């Protein structure tokens, strides 16, 4: 299942659009963080929006349904975010790679054959947990104390299920219904995708 030019362009353009959306939510999260800072709850300011940051991988994987394409989509979204000026810096690119891989894991485990709400929600929960473990080590979250960590994990998983698990599936299904995803596996009509 080789990636065609059409797959790649749809993937890169989706990644670019999500990159812009991600950057917008980085600023929203920053504002919430600033509001919570005086109370000392600053570091959970981003958690309600974390699900948005995983959408590119699950969306692109769900539409194109070829191995690895979700990982690259998330990586590119992160790269474009850095190029547009994300203040979390180049480390975001590594985040993107890891999050993309975590998003794709449930699809990989079902051999890229099961595409329903169950797998997209599994993808969301998987990426929320993996990304929190990474932040725990990378951003020294262990210094934050138990209450904040528990709160952070729970809010992040809920956010991921809503935005990544349910949101990106609804979005892809709606676009498919609008008829703009013909020729991709999601439309179920293109035999040529499986021949290669």
């Amino acid at each position: 299942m080789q990636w065609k030019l059409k797959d790649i362009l749809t993937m890169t353009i989706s990644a670019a659009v999500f990159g812009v959306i991600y950057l917008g939510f980085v600023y929203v999260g920053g504002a919430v963080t600033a509001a919570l800072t005086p109370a000392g709850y600053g570091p959970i300011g981003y958690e309600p929006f974390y699900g948005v940051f995983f959408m590119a991988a699950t969306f692109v994987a769900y539409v194109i349904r070829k191995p690895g394409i979700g990982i690259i989509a998330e990586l590119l979204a992160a790269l474009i975010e850095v190029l547009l000026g994300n203040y979390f810096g180049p480390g975001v690119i590594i985040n993107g790679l890891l999050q993309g891989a975590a998003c794709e894991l449930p699809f990989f485990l079902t051999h890229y054959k099961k595409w329903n709400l169950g797998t997209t929600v599994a993808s969301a929960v998987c990426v929320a947990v993996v990304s929190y473990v990474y932040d725990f080590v990378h951003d020294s979250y262990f210094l934050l104390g138990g209450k904040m960590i528990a709160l952070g994990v729970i809010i992040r998983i809920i956010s991921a299920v809503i935005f990544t698990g349910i949101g990106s599936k609804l979005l892809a299904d709606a676009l498919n219904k609008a008829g703009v995803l013909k020729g991709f596996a999601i439309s179920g009509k293109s035999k040529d995708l499986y021949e290669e």
Partner: protein
Amino acid sequence: MMRKINPTVKLLAILAAAVITAFGFTAKWNLVIVLFCLVLMLFSKVNIRHLLVVMIPATLAALSLFFAIWLNGKGAGTGAAYSGSGFYAQTNNASNLSDALGVGLRMYAYAFLGMLFALTTDSSEFIYSLMQQLKVKPKFAYGVLAAFHLLPVIRREYSQIRLAYRVRGYRVTPLSLRPAFSALVNTMHWSESLAMAMESKGFEEEGERTFYLDMKVRPMDFVFAAALIAIAVCGVLRV
């Protein structure tokens, strides 16, 4: 100055520095990274306004981490339990303050590393360098370039659609999903047309290509990479 550094080498060096910095957080060496990036950016004549636009939210994020760890971190809890009881509580709080300062400044170091790349790199040069130095396949590289250059068009389309909705009497707020969805539908259409346009212009997926921009790796690139990575390693070793 930084604009002449090879984009691939620049990205890899900055990425390596960001990864290495994650392993340790001495306030002193994070400050050195910030100053190093700042000086290089000033010598490269970056747009000061762009710098400030990124700096303001970065400052808020750094402050929030600083206060959260300083006030709520592991040490403070025990400190409060032994409140006013001399040496133990005080040393505990002191280590909390330096931890907080280190983590807060590291946030700043990340922001500056990111800006050093973003504000001094031309997108076309970056893509050409990826193809020539990292051997990224042209169909990926041009796909990324096409997407990047399509962004302003998508933004214009989105604002036109919002306007069209308002003309028809819909109430449009920044969070309205309808215009965003319409814009996405058009964008997905474009990606198909774009693929068709590229192929009809003779773009071959696997063919050999020549490049009008010849990106080279020069000794100066390695000097920059070595200097930046050396600073990051010093920070981890707490020299």
